[in-house]
């Protein structure tokens, strides 16, 4: 514990000890959080197929993939642009090991074998990429992970034996068991919600476990951590492994959603979308990526209709998306979460004036 306090001297306050127990899961004592949880659970009774899948399930999937980036960037200080690539790799592996219309590529394993296989391979792939990336810092980490992402995109585009080239792999089988088609709208929504919640709480838990605390120590002062006897690189590689697993889960959900995978899904543009989602939402808390994903999906889906409604040229819808993101990043360098925190701090500041107690994670 002393390590973390060393990194955040400003958070050491006398009342901290008493609050520590509650701090462990701060979500559970706020009515707003319960409200959101209940709304998410009863969503299928509120929203129809389009909103349920194209908006909410897509938000949860993109949020899960961006969550893996948030974990690396927020707690590990490593901005990785290959999280979508790992998700895409998992998606491709589901297609390759599972069943699809491309019978000369797919091995036709049942989903309960193909999915764990895809998760294991994608985690291994991400860990390997991470092991390469941890030797670098800052902008170089971004460069090397971007290079991995770009290389993977061009490889899938031109490899026909495994990845099906530009055409990709079509009509991928989705799980059906216990008499339920898990890809039909409502069960699928609950699957994504379950996976997203699992990942959210896993990140929440790990960030407070000894490993997560050591990782934050590594982020703030790697030299000091090394001097204290921590293996800095091993912590970082382990963080990549954990994040890769989360990204892989997102990738599996994505391929079940579209039942199809092709290089466009793992393009460099899509990799950067994940970064945008994480940055817009805010990378200081695990909820940030989900908020970012929601804003991203809403803008992507409705920007065109909105422009047309105002009598403007619909072809310029990307401009509106860009302006929206620019506005958020301009007014708040740590995303929507930062905006909200600042607003809350201002609200409490009018009651009493505490010092600038801003702590990470």
């Amino acid at each position, binding site marked *: 514990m002393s390590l973390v306090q060393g990194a955040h001297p400003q958070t050491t306050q006398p009342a901290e000890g008493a609050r520590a127990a509650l701090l462990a899961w701060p979500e559970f004592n706020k009515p707003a959080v319960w409200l959101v949880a209940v709304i998410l659970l009863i969503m299928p009774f509120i929203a129809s197929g*389009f909103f349920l899948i*194209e908006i909410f399930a897509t938000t949860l999937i993109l949020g899960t993939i961006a969550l893996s980036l948030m974990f690396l960037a927020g707690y590990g200080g490593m901005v990785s642009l290959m999280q979508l690539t790992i998700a895409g790799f998992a998606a491709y592996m589901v297609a390759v090991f599972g069943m699809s219309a491309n019978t000369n590529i797919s091995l036709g394993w049942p989903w309960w074998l193909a999915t764990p296989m895809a998760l294991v391979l994608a985690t291994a792939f991400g860990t390997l990429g991470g092991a390469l990336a941890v030797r670098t810092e800052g902008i170089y980490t971004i460069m090397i992970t971007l290079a991995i992402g770009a290389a993977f995109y061009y490889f899938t*585009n031109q490899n*026909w034996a495994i990845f099906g080239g530009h*055409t*990709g792999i079509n*009509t991928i089988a989705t799980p059906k068991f216990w008499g339920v088609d898990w890809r039909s709208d409502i069960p699928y929504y609950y699957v994504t919600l379950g996976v997203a919640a699992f990942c959210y709480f896993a990140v929440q838990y790990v960030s407070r476990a000894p490993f997560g605390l050591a990782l934050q120590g590594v982020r703030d002062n790697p030299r000091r951590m090394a001097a204290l006897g921590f293996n800095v690189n091993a912590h970082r590689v382990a963080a990549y492994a954990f994040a890769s697993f989360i990204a892989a889960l997102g990738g599996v959900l994505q391929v079940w959603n579209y039942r199809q995978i092709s290089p466009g899904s793992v393009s460099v543009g899509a990799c950067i979308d994940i970064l945008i989602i994480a940055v817009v939402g805010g990378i200081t808390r695990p909820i940030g990526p989900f908020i970012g994903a929601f804003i991203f999906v809403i803008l992507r889906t409705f920007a065109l209709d909105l422009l047309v409604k105002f009598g403007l040229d619909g072809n310029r819808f990307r401009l509106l998306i860009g302006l929206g993101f620019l506005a958020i990043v301009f007014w708040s360098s740590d995303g929507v979460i930062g905006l909200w925190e600042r607003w809350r701090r201002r609200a409490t500041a009018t009651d009493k004036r505490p010092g600038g107690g801003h702590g990470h994670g």
Partner: protein
Amino acid sequence: MFKSCAGLVALSSLLLSGAAIAQEKIKVGVTATLEGTYTVLGEDGIRGHQTAINTLGKKVGDKEIEFIVASTDATPDSAIRAVRKLIEQDKVQILLSPLSGDEGIAVKNFAKTRPELTFVNAASGAQETTYVDPAPNFYRYNMDGAQWQVGLGKYAYETKGYKKIATVGDDYSFIYTQVFGLVLEFCGAGGQVTNRQWVPLGTKDFASVIAALPDDVDAIYLGLGGADAVNFLNQYQQAGGKAHLMGGSIMVDQTILSAKGNAKNALIGTIAASGQADTWEDPGWQKFVKAYQDAFPPNKRFPSPSLLATNYYNSTMALILALRQANGDLSNNQAKLREALAKIELDAPNGKIKLDSNRQAIGTNFVTEVVDDGKGALFSKVVKVIPNVNQTLGYDPAVFAKIGVPSRTVPECKKY
């Protein structure tokens, strides 16, 4: 406050539904590549679509067709996303989609998961879409890439005397299909294809491709399209390339022939084959060209419709005519519409079109040569018209099946 708001919403929704009852609408979703490498192709496709609506109108009995356009970027993912958006958000009942080859394969596979809807292919031309495991609710009124190459191989070998050629093409299903059609005929006549180069769709730097072009060939076949084709021609001219050229159906097309700059002049004299020829004298074709030209101001269109405009025109026409035959009746899984779609014989501007048992077009093909009209505009001039081209290219279906599905290396250069 809240209550009065809710009341207002309820009232307005009532009014809206009242208006909806007065005139029932048939919703049709259209996709086109309005982003990425094939943007110009998508835009001209939409012009063709609009020309058909201008000619035929949107009325089906007392109902009206509402068309909703969504944008894609020639990748299968974007096509599936657009189609799903149209179905789920806009509640369309019929799809007029997609434009590009790989999109077609993905949408055909998707069509099988929505058997209650009907899909009319807009312009995509990969062979696999209708040849391998076709979807029963997917109809294609344009020929595939291989059918569009019929006549070119023989013309190149026999009339032009090209014995040895090399190919450069975009690395995806439609161009595979085009090269498939070319190689079958050219090698069948006795020619040799020494080298096939494939570049990823969206390539901007062709330096290494141009450097690798062999010198000991009589001609080079180009299977590129959109921005890729223009980039290639620019760099090819800068590199001082002088070889005889042969072109695929979207290479020698108004989307390239009316590009700005001089690079396109490299194409003068190029022989090609396609589902249309710009200067064909057939009155039906001339009428269509006139309708296209009248519909848009000269700076917002090409001098003459591109292959994409023609395809979108034909598929839109087929859909509207079939809807009229079915009296707009979409009950019972759109059975009446499907029957009409399968039976319809289009008197299309580029020759008569009917469907085979896989719901794939049998139509007319054109061998062409690029000419300068004297005012700096390039057009494709008819050399030969070949009617009744079917998907198996005149081969016995059993023999044709043995050749395999078009890919980078299929077919081999031999006589089948």
